[in-house]
């Protein structure tokens, strides 16, 4: 992304955004959904993407900056291909989330918030995922994995790594 000077939305996206904006009393309401789209399209939200969103919705850049920095799901920096977001709030904590985090970080050799050197995994702790009956919960790229234990994560990591080695990543 950093090399890309000019970013733009595809025609299709623009049409989608146009239709979306009409669903609200004011287009500015579409800001969160459009940032989600932009993040999907560009992977994360560096300044030029934020500027693009501002221009697309005819908002001031500051409005976009405020929103991007407020919400934790918006990333201003590139993350790994797989984002392992472990809920460590009370429900999961009572069910071993802390040990799980320790296990994952040790296995991958990174600290919380870091990305593995190969750019495959980023490990973060997140707040209550709203699925405490399935504690501990790990969200992997927006997908919920419930009742996760060390073995489950090992299997997942092994599979991803095998795919890389097999040239499929």
């Amino acid at each position, binding site marked *: 992304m950093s090399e890309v000077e000019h970013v733009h939305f595809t025609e299709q996206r623009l049409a989608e955004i146009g239709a979306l904006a009409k*669903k*609200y*009393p*004011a287009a*500015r*309401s*579409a*800001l*969160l*959904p459009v*940032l*989600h789209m932009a993040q999907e399209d560009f992977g994360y939200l560096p300044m030029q993407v934020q500027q693009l969103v501002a221009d697309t919705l005819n*908002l001031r850049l500051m*409005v976009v900056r*405020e*929103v991007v920095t*407020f*919400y*934790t*799901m*918006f990333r201003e920096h590139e993350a790994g291909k797989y984002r392992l977001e472990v809920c*460590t*709030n*009370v*429900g999961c*904590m*009572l*069910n071993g989330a802390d040990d799980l985090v320790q296990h994952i970080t040790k296995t991958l050799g990174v600290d919380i918030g870091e990305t593995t050197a190969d750019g495959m995994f980023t490990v973060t702790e*997140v*707040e*209550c*995922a*709203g*699925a*405490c*009956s399935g*504690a501990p919960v790990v*969200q992997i790229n*927006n*997908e*919920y994995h419930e009742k996760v234990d060390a073995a489950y994560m090992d299997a997942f990591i092994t599979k991803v790594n095998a795919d890389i080695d097999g040239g499929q990543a």
Partner: protein
Amino acid sequence: MISSDPKQVKAICFDRIHLVGQAGLKVARKNGAYKFLPTLLKDFDSEQIVDEVKKSGLRGRGGAGFPTGLKWSFVPRNTGKPTYLLCNADEGEPGTFKDRDIMRYDPHLLIEGMLMAGFALGVKDAYIYIRGEFLAEANILDAAIEDAYAANLLGENILGTEFSMNLTLHRGAGAYICGEETALIESLEGRPGRPRFKPPFPAVEGFYRCPTVVNNVETLATIPAILEFGGDWHAAIGVPNNTGMKIFCVSGDVNKPGNYEVPMGTSLKVLIEEYCGGLKHGTVPKVVIPGGSSTPWLTAEHYDTPLTYDALMKAGSMLGAGAVIVMDETADLIAVTRRLAHFYAHESCGQCTPCREGTGWLERIMNRVEAGTGCEKDIKVLSDAAEHMAGRTICALADGAAAPILSLLKHFPEVVQERLMENAE
């Protein structure tokens, strides 16, 4: 099928939740979804609906427990401005996971509830604000909304009547505070979710400064049954002033964590022992947080408390959103408190001085206390800092942040005392 005999009712929101394919419109309709809607649109007027809901005694399931019918009656009519209905599906309170099940297993129930509420309130545009992490649920809801549009259950002249309503699903992006209704409105307006002070209340000046009703998913999902069977029917379930069924999200140290919809007034003990298969260790819980992490703790002495707004209030806590977090004798209460302190420090929207600065301060002290390097005066500082956050801010997040600290200090001073200086040089 929901029984028309209040004594026989097993479930309201979860009545059809386990039916296979219920998320699809066809199956849902076969199972009774939207069955009563045509009658309602034809035979009821707004006032009647609000009256039925008032009569039902339904109280908001999002946390505050405010009577739903009363809230609806506050919406001014004929202001010349549109009225908006917003469904609060932000479900962020640690310990809650009920709305998620309604949305992913029976989305049409929610849509039907919103249609009925929208009809009662004269709403043209309604929105569901769903927490950003619930992507799978959002996709299910989106599909359901699309189906409903295709079946003329949403959009212009619904089922051939005068009534038209649009429904839009809107995803949040990771901020607990957006569950607070005014923060939700700010967020839906494309801004950071920073709560607004009240008055003015959303009913008068909410979304884009127009009259707005914000209701929780469970609240709205209860509406179809109330209108089909009548307010009195609902009022006969549960106990007076605490009527109907309530979903409790039980998590923590129980054998069968999960969502249980039970009549209001069921005791905590019954819920844990009869529904949740009892505690993992021991016979009496050390701590139960009855309404989600923001509610004060109950201890063993309150194990028999009936789960109602009033009884829990009397016991010094709150029913909140019905998120029952159970801790048995193995739980490290200091670690739990520290973790919750971290949660509130992370989620404070940052605008109010006591909350912005206090939550971080509490967390940092708790870090030390947990590490065994606390000191005697930390106890006074913790209680001072927590006490002066609660009730002095724009929204109730600060109260929620104070609750675990104050509960810990109140019920388990000796536990804290013991840990202080444990590892100090």
